[in-house]
Each structure stands twice: as structure tokens, then as C-alpha cells.
């Protein structure tokens, strides 16, 4: 049905349907499953996301390595103080993105969007903007289908794997997905959603995957915070009428090329970037020394 963002937008125009509906119809066509089953599965994913956000915001979860945790609570407390400089809704989205990834790092239950390491961006933006846009449950489920449509195009034309394309493929993809979904939820057009994807991806192009100690913690969790805020800003710019000078599909092609030519050290091997800093290496030694001593005690 569609392989590119421009084909997706053409279908929305020809059939006068939102992106989310085109995605649902494609899913029915592809799998032969009923609309009801498909929507119910997405509702279930939404519930998993909500539960992960709630847990991270309320519990101050700590990861197994002890390296991360509790930041969502800090941000949320700060937000309640009314001092937030970046705006209540934006920071709310950030706190919820961080909450999700803290739960993920603690080996909790999450829904990959599109991956686990980037699972905070989409729910962060969705639940963070809930108070502002007051969506119905159906609109929230549609948000996920729209995000899925964008991720589907990126996954098939570039990559959603950090090991294959760097962090731009993970947090970058999630940011583009969330930006488009937010545009649709706010009442924008599919073209504006496409512009938002382009602007979001342009700003994560080249982002490397350099997890300290190979853990999905540093810098992954904070990059989800950045992704959530960038998605909201990209959506706002697109809704304001700003257009990307480079068409969205060409940005996705560029992302693929950058991922292909990115050195291995920056593709989830924990051999470069932040993972290779003196502190990064020190943390790695500390974590694996303590894990191996734990194992020898068993």
C-alpha cells in the first residue's frame, strides 16, 4: 500500500483519511485479522505504556546495575513546584519518557516503540500532552497507529536498530514517530505530520549508539527525554506552517546512508563515544566486577 511517507500522504489525500486509519486498513489487509482484534491489541499496548509510566513516576525504580533510576521522580517533583522553564506539558512528557526507560532499564515490562531503548519517547509525548489535548481513548490508540505508520516506513527504508544504524535509528525514529502522531492528535494535516517527521529526523541525524557498559541506561534514558522534547517542538513547528527544505523521504534516505557509513564503534558495541570515556570505562569495570563477584558467591 505505501512504502514511503509521500505515498502514505498521497493515500490520506486520495481517500480523505487520517494516517492512523490508513495504517489500520493496511494492517487488516496485511494480516487478514479483524479491525476489532487489531484495535484491541493496540489498546493493550497502550495499557502497558500507561502502567510503565505510572510505575516510573511513582516508584523511583532503580536499574540492576544501580547506574540509573529515580530521575523521573525528580523531574516530576520539580514540575509540581511550578518552576519549570521549558513549559509544563513539555517537561511532563520528558518525565514520562524518562519514567518508561527507567522501568525498561530495571527489566520491567514495557512496549517497544519502535525499540526498548527508545520506548520512552512515544508514550512520553502521548501521556505528557494528554492534559493539554484531552484526547479520547480512541484518539490515543490512533496516536499509536500513526506513530506505527511512520516507524514502518523508517524501518523498511532505513533502520530501527542501534546495532545497524546508531541511536538515530532508535531515539531518532521514535522522535519522528511521536512528532507525526502528535500533529494528527492536535488536528494537523498528514502533510504537516510529514514535515514534523522530517524536522525531527534531521535533528537526530548522525546520533551514535554508545551505551556505557553496553547497558540500555547511559545515555539512552536521557536521550529519550531529548527525543520527547524534540518531537513536541517539531510538531509545533510543523503546525505553525514551517516546512522542511529536504523532503521527508530524502531525510530518511540520508539517515540510512549515515547509518551504513557509521563506524562500528558507534553502533551498540560499547566501544566508542560515551562508553569509551574514562568515566564510562570506569563504570563498566565497576558494574561487571560487582556482577561477577555476585555470581561467584552463588
Amino acid at each position, binding site marked *: 500500500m505505501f512504502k514511503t511517507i509521500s505515498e502514505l500522504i498521497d493515500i490520506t489525500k486520495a481517500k480523505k483519511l487520517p494516517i492512523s486509519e490508513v495504517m489500520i486498513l493496511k494492517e487488516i489487509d496485511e494480516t487478514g485479522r479483524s479491525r476489532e482484534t487489531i484495535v484491541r491489541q493496540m489498546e493493550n499496548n497502550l495499557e502497558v505504556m500507561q502502567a510503565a509510566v505510572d510505575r516510573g513516576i511513582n516508584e523511583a525504580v532503580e536499574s540492576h546495575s544501580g547506574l540509573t533510576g529515580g530521575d523521573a521522580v525528580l523531574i516530576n517533583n520539580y514540575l509540581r513546584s511550578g518552576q519549570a522553564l521549558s513549559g509544563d506539558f513539555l517537561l511532563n512528557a520528558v518525565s514520562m519518557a524518562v519514567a518508561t526507560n527507567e522501568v525498561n532499564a530495571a527489566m520491567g515490562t514495557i512496549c517497544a516503540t519502535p*525499540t526498548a531503548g527508545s520506548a520512552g519517547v512515544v508514550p512520553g509525548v502521548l501521556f505528557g500532552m494528554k492534559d493539554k489535548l484531552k484526547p479520547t481513548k480512541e484518539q490515543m490508540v490512533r496516536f499509536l497507529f500513526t506513530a*506505527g505508520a511512520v516507524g514502518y516506513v523508517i524501518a523498511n527504508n532505513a533502520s530501527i536498530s542501534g*546495532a545497524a544504524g546508531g541511536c538515530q535509528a532508535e531515539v531518532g525514529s521514535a522522535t519522528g514517530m511521536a512528532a507525526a502522531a502528535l500533529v494528527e492528535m492536535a488536528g494537523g494535516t498528514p502533510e504537516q505530520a510529514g514535515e514534523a517527521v522530517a524536522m525531527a529526523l534531521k535533528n537526530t541525524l548522525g546520533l551514535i549508539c554508545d551505551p556505557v557498559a553496553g547497558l540500555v541506561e547511559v545515555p539512552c534514558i536521557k536521550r529519550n527525554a531529548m527525543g520527547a522534547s524534540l518531537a513536541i517542538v517539531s510538531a509545533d513547528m510543523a503546525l505553525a506552517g514551517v516546512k522542511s527544505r529536504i523532503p521527508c523521504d530524502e531525510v530518511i534516505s540520508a539517515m540510512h546512508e549515515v547509518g551504513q557509513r557509521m563506524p562500528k564503534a558507534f553502533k*551498540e558495541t560499547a566501544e566508542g563515544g560515551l562508553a569509551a570515556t574514562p568515566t564510562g570505562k570506569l563504570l563498566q569495570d565497576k558494574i561487571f566486577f560487582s556482577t561477577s563477584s555476585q555470581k561467584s558467591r552463588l
Partner: protein
Amino acid sequence: MKFRSVFDIIGPVMIGPSSSHTAGAARIGRVARQLFGKQPEHVDIHLYGSFAKTYKGHGTDVALVGGLLDYDTFDERIVQALDDAEQAGLSLAFYEEEEELEHPNTVRLVLRSGVEEMKITGVSIGGGKVEIIELNDYDLKLSGNGPALFILHHDRYGAVATVAGVLAKHEINISYMEVSRKVRGQTALMVIETDQSITPEIAKEISGLPHMFNVATLD
């Protein structure tokens, strides 16, 4: 198109921390377990590329073993899979391989139980999506563009026809198929790629047919 469903992107629901290194690893382990048909006594786990470099941090070891114990990606028991394996009498050996393969997230599993042995190589291509590229030394030529069905069966006439018959009955179209065996009359492997999804009920129906040993599916 390697990614076909919206749930390849929004999903899977899983235990963290990594869709490729945890959920994908669990799925590869589970396909291996299903094809082996029972819990193995020992498994050699050969890790390549990013899997070899970061498996401890990503819980890849725990997830692979969880899959070998038949746990799904969202099964909370994955966290304690190494302890569960020890209790269940499943011994494990991990090997960090230096060789660079085509895909950075590749794992080769060798499952053993008594004299029985099965080798399987899987790759985790992102977002929890996986492909099986080798089985018992046969390079599989699957495109990865459709759901796949793996069947170990007794090498007898009619086996292929009965499986094709069940798929036809459920209006499932075969887009690619390969059949291989090492010794005539013994165990053969059927690998089928389809246009439509194969539900657990259909997989069960196939495994109940005459001459079938074990059946695994990959969506």
C-alpha cells in the same frame, strides 16, 4: 519489506532492556526450543558482533535462556532465567566469537539432549524482529518478508503434501518453500514462507499430522 505489521513497530510488549538484544534474543531461543520439541540438556551459545560485545549489559544471555525455557518476550520469569535453567537441569556455555558476520546481532545455538543435536542460527534485526538463517548446517534462503514455518519431520512420502493441504485449507499462500534432509528416510526439514500469518492453532494442527516431529513459527 522486512517489517510488515504495525506491531513490529509498536511492540512487542516485553521485559526490558533491549528489543533487539533482549526480546529478539528471547524469540530466537524460543524458536529453537519449539523446534527441538523439548527442553535440551545442554546448549552452546555462540554470540557474534554486538551480541558478543554487550550481551551481559543487555540481558541477552538471560533472554536467550528464557526463550530456551519457552518463556515469551513479556514473561517476567525471564529475569531469573539463568537460575531457572540451573534448577531445570539445563546446562549452558557462552562463547564470545570474534568473527564478523553479515549482521551485527547474530547468535548460533547448539542444543543437545543425549545423542540428539540441533544447530540453529538467528539474527535480531531490530525492534524485536528476528530471522532464522541456518538450521542444522543448512543455509536457509528465506526472504524475511513473510511469516515463516519450520517443520522437522520424518522423511516420508506425502509429508509435504499434507502440510500444504492444511495451509491451503486455511487459505494460506506459500511464497517460498525448501525441503532438505541429510539421510534418506530419517529427519527432514521443511521451511515455508507464507503470505498470511500462521496462527498457533494452525501450527498445532500441522504438528498433529502424521510424520511431523516439531513445528515452530516466526511472524
